[in-house]
């Protein structure tokens, strides 16, 4: 399958410029001839569109094409990088010349024979922009507006956005890697404002994945986003100020798994650990979570937003165990950091585009299901917070402190979910937080396909997931001290 996508990538990226394998060879030779251990060329074309509805009408939309080639030269721990937004041989050689300037002495680099990784495809190489007509896209958005407004008369604003990207790339490495992929990605979001007695609240819901637009029509997914956005906004209309302080927190299944992304995932990325700047540095084999916790990063889930057939260095993705029954097992690696740490790459080398350098990044990060009934987990809490929806999060890798912000939360009183409370930021310490997990539900869910992770100014789509979790002590940043 990857051979087919490689063929597609060649047709789109190399053929129009009249480039062949011999040209890739000479560009890589130009890199290596100059004292470089290894290097790669990354050709990319990305087509994107977005459609937006507000005031019950689709009034704005845009289309964008981005293409270019990034050239990377590596010498020990040094990386030289240059790129061009023209895919033609002179620009390629110019970029190679700029990138190779990183090296001073003669290097050991040697070109290898091409090889292409083989694996079954996780998603079809389709062009999602073409999977619905423009009329049907407009109709879909208008239908969601009607559906949202139909839910409740307190809805005053409905905003819907629909977006698709087709990302085609080809990577040629001096190690002989010759790989390509065609990645579709769609995203739909419904956001509403509700108003009652002068108080306004917002709610938003959405989803997506590596599929065509038709996926939103299946199982009424799109309509459910519209209903969910309104439900969330209405819950917040009734919300009381959130509590402040350290308490028992029950996290709902699915998107609250952003906990794992912030508290665990980033700290296990290879670059931070190679440099010794992560709070998890040197802790492989140690207990960092309760024995109930097993956490993985899995790039191989079919059609998921965070999944990749191959990463941006051509390494096939895999399911990497990060924590197994509470014990720290492994890091997420790209090629550079894997080599420097004498470990194997894990298929986590990702870049936002040809104009960015690859970094170790997450794919879909989630915790395995446990044995508890979610109802029993709630019933076990005398007083605490039940947080089921979240906005974003952030982590300080070095100190390990992380936050994630609840957008739908309730008080738990005497084993029952009672009143909704306003959104609040939760803060904890990455290496400790999972040691506080005392119950894990059997209800593992992955998120709806909405996550975007930022690192070093680069954004990539990711997924998260988890079952219902009980954390004995976590700090809740409300206003009610």
């Amino acid at each position, binding site marked *: 399958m990857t051979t087919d996508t490689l063929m597609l990538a060649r047709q789109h990226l190399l053929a129009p410029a009249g480039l062949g394998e011999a040209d890739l060879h000479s560009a890589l030779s130009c890199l290596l001839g100059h004292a470089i251990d290894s290097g790669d060329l990354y050709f990319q074309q990305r087509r994107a569109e977005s459609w937006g509805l507000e005031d019950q*009408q689709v009034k704005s939309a845009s289309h964008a094409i981005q*293409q270019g080639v990034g050239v990377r030269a590596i010498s020990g721990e040094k990386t030289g990088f240059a790129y061009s*937004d023209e895919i033609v041989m002179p620009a390629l050689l110019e970029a190679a010349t700029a990138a190779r300037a990183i090296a001073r002495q003669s290097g050991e680099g040697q070109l290898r024979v091409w090889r292409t990784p083989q694996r079954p495809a996780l998603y079809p190489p389709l062009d999602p922009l073409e999977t619905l007509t423009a009329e049907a896209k407009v109709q879909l958005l208008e239908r969601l507006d009607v559906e949202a407004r139909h839910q409740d008369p307190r809805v005053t604003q409905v905003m819907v956005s629909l977006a698709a990207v087709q990302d085609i790339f080809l990577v040629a490495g001096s190690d002989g890697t010759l790989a390509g992929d065609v990645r579709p990605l769609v995203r739909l979001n419904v956001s509403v404002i509700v108003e009652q007695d002068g108080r306004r609240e917002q709610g938003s819901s959405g989803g997506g994945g590596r599929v065509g637009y038709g996926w939103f029509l299946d199982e009424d997914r799109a309509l459910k986003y519209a209903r969910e956005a309104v439900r969330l906004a209405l819950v917040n209309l009734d919300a009381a100020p959130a509590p402040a302080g350290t308490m028992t927190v029950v996290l709902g299944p699915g998107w609250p798994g952003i906990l794992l992304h912030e508290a665990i995932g980033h700290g296990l990325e290879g670059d931070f650990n190679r440099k010794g700047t992560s709070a998890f540095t040197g802790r492989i084999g140690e207990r960092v979570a309760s024995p109930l916790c097993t956490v993985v990063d899995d790039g191989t889930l079919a059609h998921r937003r965070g999944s990749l057939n191959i990463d941006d260095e051509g390494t096939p993705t895999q399911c990497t165990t990060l924590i197994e029954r509470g014990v720290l097992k492994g890091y997420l690696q790209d090629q550079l950091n894997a080599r420097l740490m004498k470990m194997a790459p894990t298929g986590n080398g990702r870049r936002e585009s040809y104009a960015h350098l690859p970094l170790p990044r997450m794919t879909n990060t989630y915790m395995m299901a446990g044995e508890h009934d979610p109802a029993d987990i709630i019933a076990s809490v005398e007083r605490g917070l039940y947080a089921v929806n979240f906005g974003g999060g952030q982590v300080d890798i070095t100190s390990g*402190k992380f936050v994630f912000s609840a957008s739908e939360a309730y008080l738990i009183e005497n084993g029952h979910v009672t009143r909704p409370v306003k959104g609040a930021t939760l803060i904890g310490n990455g290496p400790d937080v999972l040691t506080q997990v005392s119950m894990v539900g059997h209800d593992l869910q992955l998120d709806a396909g909405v996550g975007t992770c930022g690192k070093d100014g680069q954004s990539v789509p990711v997924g998260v997931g988890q079952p219902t979790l009980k954390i004995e002590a976590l700090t809740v940043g409300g206003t009610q001290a």
Partner: protein
Amino acid sequence: MPEIIPHPTAPLPAREHLETLVADILAEARTQGATAAEAAVSFNSALSVTVRLGEVETLEHHRQRGLGVTVYFGHSRGSASTADWRPEAIRDTVQSACAIARHTAADPYAGLADPDRLAREIPDLDLYHPWPLIAEDAIILARECEAAALAFDPRIRNSEGGSIATQTGLVLYGNSHGFCGGYPTSRHSLSCSVIAQDETGMQRNHWYTVARHRNDLETPVAVGQQAAQRALRRLGSRRLSTRQVPVLFAPELARGLIGHFIAAIRGGALYRKASFLLDRLGTPVFPEFVTICERPHLRQGLASAPFDSEGVATADRDIVNGGVLQGYVLDSYSARRLGMATTGNAGGTHNLIVEPGPLGHEELLRQMDTGLWVTELLGHGVNTVTGDYSRGASGFWVENGAIQHPVHEITIAGNLNAMFQHLAAVGNDVDLRGGIRCGSLLLERMTVAGE
């Protein structure tokens, strides 16, 4: 032999070339039937170097082009963009925009800026001071910066590196009212991020300097030492118990609070009624001592612009005077929706200046007496619709005006509306490194959540 790249950042293309491109795009839009059109063409070039533990880690050459067009068929519009400047790409891009415009609904508020608001004279704001920095010299400066941090104290044990970046760009905007304007800009920065470590653990911190002209950058040694000091002072951080206290925001964070204020008076948030500052024009939003003005024409200003991203002339104005909200932040579209006139803020604000108060940092600590001095924030827990604010924080616990110890793993929470109303003081310790110039902000009371 070390190889030296003679031209560190690619030279900017001739301005005439970009003017021709803009004209070609607008002509193509007319040919394809658009009743009006606007286009922007951009070119950026940069060199960046990171040195970590004395060795070069990355050397990056950036060079990026862009081209964007919006076409109008009456009141229906469509937009498209590409990085490809060839004639056939221009044709395809305009075609994509036109295809979209055939499907979007007519929006009576959509359209170009009113012709009488377009900039007629374009003042030279002195924004272009390219730095012919070769890679070898960039490496020396980044290394010097990091070395100053590493040598500062034996507890500086690790580093994420010293970095230097120099960037130049040229953007041209034109529309079918006959406007075409553009100007080159430069931006240079030097930064350092290091890790301090002792028996209490590791703490990271960073510092940076940024300017249009290289002579206005802080020295590499100053940046490195500041990064080291900031990492060191975090060592031994403790938690706090949950409490309500005054909070002093350091200038680099105070800017963010003003940013939340601006987000709430932006046209888009207002016409959607998605703001906690609806219908507040002419009413007090801050205490009387607060004045916030916009000064778009500051020479070498980091957010200076002679006109906004739809060609509208920018001008000095007060946004807050005596605590009272004087104006919103509008582009032509949101202004028409609100029945108002654009404020020349398509694309954002241009040098916001919060008038400094009389007190410096030390005096503000004394005025606060007992409370939290926040020096870092974590997360994005800010709701512009309600004003609810809840974010992770670290900083220092202060008693009797004196710093007691660093704190971390706490949150601070409140509501922006009340936080602004109960602002106690603006400091004179202004941070000049951005589009919002603001000193420390002392807030009367927030909830700190901790142990």
